[in-house]
């Protein structure tokens, strides 16, 4: 269980971005020396079309408190239509997340172009602050613990039962 309190809580934000637009936009924020919270960790993909919704679940499971997915603006995809496929996929995926009880405010989709360093800063800052007020995400961490327990065969009883099969 997460025992961090609301006061010293620093949210962990994972960003899945495409290399052509948002990654370059984040680079631009750097070269322009803009400042934003250090909570975000960026994972680079060739295209938002490559981002499997499973990665988002995995990120939550690994303790992310917020996830950001960002790519090229519609119509600007480096790979013609990858971001359209992504958009359609995530529209359906959001419904699923909502159904299983994840607060959709923890998941943000946005379009940040290679020229929008300022927008990158804005998006990251907004999400970080929003998640900070929401507090830590606990649901998936509990799942992760369960998975570890059920997957391991480390007690003598379990080993014995296993060998008996």
């Amino acid at each position, binding site marked *: 269980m997460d025992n961090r309190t609301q006061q010293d809580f620093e949210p*962990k934000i*994972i960003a899945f971005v495409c*290399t052509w637009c948002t*990654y*370059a936009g*984040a*680079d631009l*924020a*750097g*070269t322009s*020396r*803009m*400042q*934003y919270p*250090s909570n975000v*960790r*960026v*994972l*680079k*993909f*060739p*295209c938002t*079309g*490559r*981002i*499997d*919704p499973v*990665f988002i679940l*995995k*990120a939550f499971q*690994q*303790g*992310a408190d917020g996830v950001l997915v960002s790519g090229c603006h519609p119509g600007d995809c*480096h*790979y*013609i*239509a*990858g971001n359209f*496929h*992504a958009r359609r*996929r995530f529209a359906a995926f959001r419904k699923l997340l909502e159904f299983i009880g994840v607060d959709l405010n923890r998941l943000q989709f946005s379009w940040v172009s290679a020229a929008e360093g300022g927008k990158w*800063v804005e998006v990251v800052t907004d999400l970080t602050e929003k998640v900070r007020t929401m507090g830590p995400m606990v649901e998936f961490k509990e799942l992760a613990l369960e998975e570890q327990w059920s997957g391991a065969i480390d007690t003598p009883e379990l080993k014995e039962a296993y060998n008996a099969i």
Partner: protein
Amino acid sequence: MSRIGVFICHCGENISRTVDVERVAAEIGRHPGVAFSTDYKYMCSDPGQTLLKKAIQEQRLTHVVVAACSPRMHEKTFRKAVEVAGLNPFLCEMANIREHCSWVHEDREEATVKAIDIVGMMVERVKKNRVLAAITVPVTKRSLVIGGGIAGIQAALDIADCGHEVILVEREPSIGGHMAQLSETFPTLDCSQCIMTPKMVDVANHPKIKLYTYSEIELVEGYIGNFQVTIKKKARSVDEDKCTGCGVCMTKCPQKKIPNRFDQNIGMRSAIYVPFPQAVPNTPVIDRDNCTWFKSGKCGVCQKVCGPGAVDFEQQDRLVVEAVGAIVVATGFDLYSINEKPKGSAIKGYGEFGHGKIPDVIDGMTFERLASASGPTGGKILRPSDGKEPKQIVFIQCVGSRAREKGISYCSKVCCMYTAKHTMLYHHKVHDGQAYVFFMDARTPGKSYDEFWRRSIEEEEAVYIRGMVSRLYQKGDKIVVMGSDIAVGVQVEIEADMVVLATAIQPQKGADTLAQKLGISYDKYNFYSEAHAKLRPVECATAGIYLAGACQGPKDIPETVSQASAAAAKVMTLFSKDKLEREPVVARVREAGCVGCFACKKVCAYGAVEEKEIRDRQGNLVKIVAYVNPGVCAGCGTCQATCPSKCVELDGYTDEQIVAMIEAL
């Protein structure tokens, strides 16, 4: 067991000012799998790279992570260095601790923690990196040019002059396209035929150009460097090798009253014909729909009079396959016909302008044929209805263009200039005539263009009226044009003898069908889309296919010629290498698990996914699976995220690598 080397760059003070690089190096040194970690002031400098190479050899490193600037900056540099030291370049990754960390955070503690996280993430990723080899594909150094207008001719000549074979395919019986139809060209008023026909002859005589006229593209297969194109040579009914082009057949043909499309149907031709006297090739073609022989089996005069015996009524359509490495698409434009319903419009054309109903309402191209010295009237401006010289002529601009409600919101770009030219040609030929122009805006960007437009008003006495025409109707032998002059705010009524409509430029009919054969994208108007509007304006997103001319959007002649030469230069760049090398970031199918649902094929924007048959030793079909052609795949990975059985993997971005990164956080 991997022996990973981690190199932390100070970037002068750019990184070390906010990130405690020594601490990062020390902490990462304790990370499982890391055998060596150090920091250095400038990793990208020559001593920095030497340090990297030396460490790889001395420490027997298996993988490398360089924590420095953005990979967009120096990934190539470090991968090259790693390769020199004997490691596969794709076993080197960069951790971006400058743009994404030291430059955007001020707090030293926070930045250092983040840097450790970023480096740790990349260490976990690099562990899962696989040895990849750059993909090479052979290049067939021949190119196909589709369309024999000025764009296609220019591209073909440029490529052929560099010594590479060109296949030029034209749908019509002659090359020349629309430019051959024009009378004179703006802004210099030089005769279009005089500058065009020598180029056409150059094409015909060029030893490196293989010309297919009266032919169409049937099928395009393959990918960059290796296309297989099937061309349909339509039956000409005349043997090209035997025909001498003497023209006796045409003079003896009893059918002489067939409207000639080249003359916008105001001139007549015979059933066996060349579209215009300077046609290249100068081999006639029999119009089977109008030929007496093909309609009733009688006549055959052309065959009887043909000395070399070239007329062949038995000729059939023929399919030819050509192997090429690059394709230039130069299919040009068509004019908006106001009798038709344009794509995306709810309303049919411009009934209010009476085109097709009132014979003396013509379009700009018809006016070109009237003004052309080689046209049906021998260069005299005469009314199609009664052959009289019009003394009052009205030009209406933006017919179709910039009309959102009619489904065309773009500007056709050339009409302002050619209407100005028309007023001049008219004034030169009918000295006592008066030209009026209804216009919305005069758009004349281009070298010497605005001066030209001004000249039509100041020297050639054209009257420009800002405003649109609401209605026109026939009154006796006059056409009454009703419009408004918004500059003065009055209604205008002109009794004209002739009306010329500047109809919008549209892509050729069937442009979308051709695009689907080629696998290139097109916009909502069917204009072909370039890979990048600003930085890659002549390349298609589909590798190996280039665009030239008005098939991409409305263009004038100088622009078309520039783009055609640019496309030729792109083809030459491709042909400068014997083999194409590209990043091995391509998708690969795990055939054992593939169930052949082809969801990947549906989402692939490049048509890289093919169907592959798996057979057992007896040759029985086991199943059909997806196969990604590495020559075509662009590496976006959309197929991988789509695959329901997780059987496609994008090299360099595998699920394993991504999950390892997430788990490291």
